[in-house]
């Protein structure tokens, strides 16, 4: 049995302390120290970034490349290596000693090119590993799911490669930011070259990956090509990760179409484009014209995977390692020395996102998410490989020039697979944010 022994003096002391605490409490609640209580606050602990990318599945190759770039970004933020884009990014507050004086650590996850696995991985990073920021994706399905989770948890999400209009459209979130371009911008950028190369009297057949990215790309490219005067003969959805597209390609031959538009990415495109070429589509004549294939969004890794089939194919890209600006040169040099190959656009966007988040914390002087968000919103920067770039506050979409690329007919090395044949100015790919629905949501962070 326990006896409670409370003397008169001790009772008075305790009561005095209680009264003092009650009187002081409103001050505490309004102080910055309370405001700093947020999910995975690294004030007294580690600064952990969560790199959540597909390492298996249809988009694994792009994901693994992105992961390598994230690891390089952490090295540069912590002051290791040659500094990469820290030497070119302007304005820049990072000092090469970590973020706010703390060295950055990281955890990684495999999203398996699967929305549920991506969400589970991000949850694990936030709840178990203490990630202050989550970044990475190669599918828009993953990006949208993780972005939504991060809003719930009050953790900032710097999206990786995601091209669906929905990411910064109807599914945008206050805690989500996208550096990569989107399907609407691809449509605007590619249309003039399509008109110039293939004319304005064309009949297009779309094969579209059946998920959010495919749907919005199909919608944007249809809108852009129909505005040119093209007719859309059919738009057929194909399951993600299909492999054998023969049953979808044979109907194209007799559809009356003279252009096949492949709204596929990653392994899907690496399979569908060569198979379309194997079926002899590019040797055909239809409606008195040469049959053409267009891949509205593609990357160097896909071009390497698709091999010979990619020669002459027109598409758009967010970035290319052979650009001549100082940011691109610095990043390509760092990445090439580290990994023996040039970086992909997937690697580039991941690297830039990690640097931008770290720099925003440094500028805000805190890891407190609402302040970091405000530091990113409306931020104008240069030296990251895409020319002057704006992180628009209205939808957290980056605005910069968009590249139009074409499969290289005469490559001089195994990396020399794409040529940049056009650049669409930032002003031309800037659109009114209200064309897409959605609300960003509140700044106030949730406790995870």
């Amino acid at each position, binding site marked *: 049995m326990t006896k409670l022994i409370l003397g008169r003096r001790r009772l008075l002391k305790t009561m005095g302390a209680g009264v003092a605490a009650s009187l002081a409490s409103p001050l505490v609640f309004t102080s910055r120290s309370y405001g700093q209580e947020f999910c995975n606050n690294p004030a007294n602990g580690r600064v952990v970034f969560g790199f959540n990318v597909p390492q298996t*599945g249809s988009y694994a190759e792009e994901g693994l490349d992105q992961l390598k770039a994230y690891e390089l970004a952490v090295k540069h933020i912590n002051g290791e290596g040659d500094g990469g884009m820290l030497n070119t990014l302007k304005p820049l507050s990072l000092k090469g000693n970590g973020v706010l004086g703390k060295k950055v650590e990281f955890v990684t996850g495999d999203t398996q090119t699967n929305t549920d696995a991506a969400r589970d991985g991000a949850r694990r990073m936030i709840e178990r590993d203490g990630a202050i920021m989550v970044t990475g994706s190669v599918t828009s399905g993953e990006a949208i799911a993780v972005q939504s989770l991060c809003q719930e948890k009050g953790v900032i999400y710097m999206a990786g490669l995601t091209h669906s209009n929905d990411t910064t459209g109807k599914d945008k979130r206050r805690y989500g930011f996208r550096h990569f371009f989107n399907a609407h911008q691809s449509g605007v950028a590619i249309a003039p070259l399509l008109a110039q190369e293939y004319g304005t009297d064309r009949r297009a057949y779309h094969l579209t990956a059946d998920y959010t990215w495919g749907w919005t790309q199909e919608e944007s490219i249809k809108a852009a090509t129909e505005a040119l005067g093209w007719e859309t003969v059919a738009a057929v959805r194909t399951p993600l990760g299909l492999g054998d597209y023969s*049953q*979808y390609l044979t*109907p194209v031959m007799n559809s009356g179409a003279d252009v096949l538009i492949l709204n596929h990415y990653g*392994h899907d495109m690496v399979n569908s484009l060569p198979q379309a070429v*194997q079926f*002899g589509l590019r*040797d055909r004549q239809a409606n008195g014209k040469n049959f053409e294939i267009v891949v509205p969004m593609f990357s160097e890794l896909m071009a390497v995977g698709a091999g*010979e089939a990619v020669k002459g194919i027109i598409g758009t890209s967010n970035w290319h390692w*052979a650009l001549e600006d100082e940011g691109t040169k610095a990043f390509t040099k760092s990445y090439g020395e580290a990994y023996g190959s040039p970086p992909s656009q997937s690697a580039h966007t991941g690297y830039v996102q990690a640097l931008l988040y770290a720099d925003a914390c440094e500028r805000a002087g805190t890891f407190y998410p609402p302040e970091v968000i405000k530091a990113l919103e409306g931020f104008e920067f240069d030296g990251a490989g895409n020319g002057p770039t704006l992180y628009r506050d209205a939808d957290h979409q980056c605005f910069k020039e968009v590249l139009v690329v074409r499969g290289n007919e005469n490559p001089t090395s195994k990396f020399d697979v794409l040529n940049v044949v056009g650049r669409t100015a930032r002003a031309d790919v800037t659109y009114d944010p209200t064309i897409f629905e959605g609300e960003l949501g509140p700044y106030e962070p949730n406790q995870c």
Partner: protein
Amino acid sequence: MNAFLAQLLNGLDKGGAYALIALGLTLVFGTLGVVNFAHGALFMLGCFCAVAFRYLLTIETVTVDPTQLSPWGQPVEVRTPLVQNWFGDFGAVLVDYSVPISVLLTVPVMLAIGIAMERGLIKHFYKRTHAEQILVTFGLAIVLQEIVKSFFGPNPVPQPIPTDLRGAADIGLLLGMEAHQLTYPWWRLIYLFFSLAVIGGVFAFLQFTTFGMVVRAGMADRETVGLLGIDIGRRFTIVFGLAAVVAGVAGAMYTPLLAPNYLIGMDFLVLSFVVVVVGGMGSLTGAVAAGFLLGILQSFASMTEVKSLFPGIDQVIIYLVAVVILLVRPRGLLGRRGVMEG
């Protein structure tokens, strides 16, 4: 008409793959009475025989060329396959034709794997229930998948079509149409003829050889054949090896059409079981006929006109047919009376 012919060719080509896998599955069920859920893994192992063979052929020597610099300022590495160093142009041809040549390697490897699998594991489950056979073979499939994953990684490994066999054959010209009206990829046509040749070979082997006659007799009445002093068990072991070879070569030749990863067998396993059920458990001709039939049906279900009437039908047509067959004729199209009935 062109659309119809193109879809028919596509269906035959798909059907060839389905028929080859289902044929091996039926051989094992018909002779040993074993429901082999590891059969898809045998197809996968065949795929990776082709991959491994190409890996061997493309072991490279690496030399640094200081006169050429990469975009990041390092000397360029020049990589040359060893076989090309040793045999010159012939070595380059070997690398180019690695997939068809790998079939020659696949046959003995798969025969050895099949025999080892039957002697080491399957024979201990002959008298167990089908549920137990399914559990043990499914477990074996997972073990095989994980072994392959540990060697070759989790992602698909593309295999190239030989340069001369890329592109499409102008079938339309043969039928009196204008050029390029009906084209079909050469490799898919080759795969179709390859599958027909393998199927023909297996049937001929069972029909016209003494070994085949004994196996067929054993399938009909194992006890009586045993009483005649014939070691039917040994022959059935070889049949299991034969089934593994059929699945393996089907996989090796399929790699240029679909880059294999360690899960490719599972994707085909479900389909091939449906094919076997539709064709009739234990019926070799049923398996082949159902393979081609379902391939063609799946292909026609993908036509725009059909999908506009029944959206999504291409994804479910095979399973719909299986459901109807199970309801109307449980023994399958060409199954023996009494099997799977009652």
